[in-house]
């Protein structure tokens, strides 16, 4: 059977499965790909060469938001993007998105394929799709029962990237674990966040030394410090990568942002945070996230393309498919951005998407415009109108991500009530031990009223809250989703929150949408 025939048969299969999923209201973000890959195992290899560009985003946290932002920037620039936007980020999810984008004449509808790739799937997906630009967001502990240990995950990415010698890497310089992927290749762009919102000139980028603090000492910004507990073991934030990836010496930090992200150096071998090509500073986060991105070198003067540059609808002006810009040293310039996002962690997501968009030649104006009208993905601090109040839905899946959501929540004024829904299905991670590494102690804050524990592991989570110091009378167990929302609606609080692990997220989004609109109808 010829490859062409097999691929089209797979395409037909994918379409049929997708239609069946649709019929039964089953989210067909992955299943069509699973079935179609059985028909044509190398479908992704066969489909990706039809795109002008193939881009990939991987890492532990921020993949979905970074990829969605970048897709949004590229579309605003008149470049249609095929994208596994729903977070199905293993090979079948990637295949599903590409099949969806493929027409029966063999041509894709879009010009660019943007793939969000699970950390554990980089080997398979990169080998098949051969991305020419790879963004790596960060490495935190996540679902260790699935990936065993982070060292292994990072080694996996290193191997996958080594097989793509021509790819440009867009790396988070603030994460020593991500930087270890670089290994001296020429085409690397680094992004990072400066200290205390000071501009580059006052920050001494890459000049580690004077203000050094020990690896568990200073914090780069104020956050939700856990309530005092016995000893320091429980007040420590989880930090990975405390040791130099080259020589094993403990890293010294000039400052931390969160987790192990910050400005670090090794006093023994000279390993340090690389110079930043894209540096965020001047950050303010209220209802809107405002930041300035300082762009260095040729990245600052790359030729732009944007919607205004006479790209017809459907975007057929080809980009050069050859190599991306290499940077001679040059001046820095500033790009001011505002996005309807909340939470400091989103600074990294906006920054990563901006860096990649600039490398791809998207103009400042388009990025600024697109950032302003971005809409958060499902459950990434997504707002609903529920029970007459604002209810924010947020995904939590690992300690560092959960801590950042909690910090953002605590910093918001007013009385709060929460549902926290913990599941332990395969996509959540079977092991919920990570809950004990997150700082739920901040929920002992007097502004937090009731915390309703939901999900398959509601009972475990209630115990976790108890030992984190949340008063017993504030803890409630209501495992079922509708019951948990009824209890939430009954709370006297200014702001409501639902924090959920992955397999709870979409159901809560659906319920909040439905019940929320019901509330509005009653109001009229």
């Amino acid at each position: 059977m010829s490859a062409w025939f097999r691929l089209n048969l797979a395409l037909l299969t994918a379409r049929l499965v997708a239609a069946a999923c649709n019929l039964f209201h089953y989210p067909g973000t992955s299943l069509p790909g699973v079935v179609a890959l059985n028909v044509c195992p190398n479908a992704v290899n066969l489909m990706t060469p039809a795109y002008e560009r193939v881009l990939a985003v991987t890492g532990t946290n921020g993949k979905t938001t970074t990829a969605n932002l970048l897709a949004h920037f590229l579309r605003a620039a008149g470049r249609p993007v095929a994208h596994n936007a729903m977070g199905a980020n293993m090979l079948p999810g990637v295949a599903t998105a590409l099949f969806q984008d493929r027409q029966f004449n063999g041509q894709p509808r879009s010009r660019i394929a943007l793939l969000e790739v699970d950390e554990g799937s980089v080997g398979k997906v990169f080998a098949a799709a051969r991305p020419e630009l790879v963004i790596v967001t960060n490495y935190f502990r996540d679902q260790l029962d699935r990936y065993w240990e982070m060292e292994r995950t990072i080694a996996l990415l290193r191997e996958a990237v080594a097989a793509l010698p021509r790819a440009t890497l867009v790396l988070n310089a603030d994460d020593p674990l991500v930087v270890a992927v670089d290994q001296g290749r020429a085409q690397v762009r680094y992004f990072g966040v400066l200290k205390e919102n000071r501009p580059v000139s006052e920050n001494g980028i890459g000049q580690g030394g004077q203000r050094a603090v020990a690896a568990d000492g200073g914090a780069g910004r104020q956050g939700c410090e856990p309530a005092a507990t016995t000893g320091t073991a429980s007040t420590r934030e989880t930090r990975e990568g405390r040791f130099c990836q080259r020589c094993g010496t403990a890293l010294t930090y000039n400052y931390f942002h969160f987790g192990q992200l910050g400005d670090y150096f090794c006093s023994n071998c000279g390993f340090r945070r690389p110079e930043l090509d894209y540096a965020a500073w001047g950050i303010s986060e209220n209802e809107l996230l405002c930041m300035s991105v300082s762009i260095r070198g040729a990245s600052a003067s790359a030729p732009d393309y944007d919607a205004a540059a006479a790209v017809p609808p459907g975007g057929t002006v080809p980009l050069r498919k050859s190599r991306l810009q290499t940077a001679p040293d040059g001046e820095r310039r500033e790009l001011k951005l505002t996005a309807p996002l909340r939470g400091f962690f989103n600074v990294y997501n906006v920054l990563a998407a901006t860096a990649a968009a600039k490398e791809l030649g998207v103009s400042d104006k388009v990025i600024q415009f697109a950032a302003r009208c971005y809409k958060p993905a499902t459950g990434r601090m997504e707002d609903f109108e529920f029970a007459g109040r604002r209810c924010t839905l947020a995904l939590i899946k690992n300690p560092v991500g959960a801590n950042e959501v909690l910090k953002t929540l605590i910093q918001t004024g007013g009385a709060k009530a929460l549902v926290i829904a913990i599941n332990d299905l395969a996509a959540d991670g079977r092991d919920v031990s990570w809950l004990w590494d997150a700082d739920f102690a901040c929920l002992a804050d007097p502004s937090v009223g009731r915390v309703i524990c939901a999900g398959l592991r509601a009972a475990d989570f209630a115990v976790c809250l108890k030992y984190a110091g949340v008063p017993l009378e504030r803890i409630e167990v209501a495992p079922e989703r509708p019951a948990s929302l009824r209890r939430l609606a009954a709370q006297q609080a200014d702001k409501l929150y639902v924090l959920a692990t992955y397999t709870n997220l979409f159901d809560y989004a659906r319920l909040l949408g439905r019940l929320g609109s019901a509330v509005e109808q009653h109001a009229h």
Partner: protein
Amino acid sequence: MRIRVCHLYPDLLNLYGDRGNVLIFCRRAEWRGIEVQLDLISLSDQVRFTDYDFIFTGGGADLDQGLVSKDLEMRGPVLIDAVEHGVALLCICGGYQLLGRYYRAQDGATLPGVGLFDLYTEAGSRRLKGNILLDLDPELKGGIMPCRGQQLDTLVGFENHSGRTFLGETVRPLARVIRGNGNNGDDGTEGVNYKNAFGTYLHGPFLSKNPHFADLLIARALFRRHGSVDLAPLDDTLEINAHRVMERRLR
């Protein structure tokens, strides 16, 4: 009354929520009006283990476990001495393996252990992971106090290990496997008990759903200096519920 707790290698052996166990141990002591002194001890810190009532160590990533293994080599004899004198100890996963006689890797290389427990571990190819339900060793059941009128004699938790551990003649298992794999997936044993020292593969905050075992540890820790202590009962509604939910799921 005072209880002195040593958290050994909190910065290295902390793979997944292990510190939860220390938190639970300390809180449950404090709620009984027992003053808690918690010391965090890591590589090359000077320490006298006999100054403590309870020593805890968790599991770590391969790299960190290598660092710990070197440090433990030096501390081995004093640690064994402390346990011989009745100091209570709980070690989990990596810590559990390191306190045995040796660990044999897949390539046949042997990493010597401290030898505190009469057991050895061999690398396995398949990871043994998932929720686990255990029946406490009969010798330990006697030391369990009723929680809110209920006598718990099972343990529940989550295991995740590729090592296969085999117990020697001079130690008892912590429990028998009802659902799950345990020490090696074959002989039905899980964990180890020698004097007041315990080891287990139940990683993460193992004590959270096993308040009765947490209290057994506290009682054993106090015994050396205070003899038999009656621990006042606590409101363990949430803990027992969590235990029962998982027990029902696995039965």
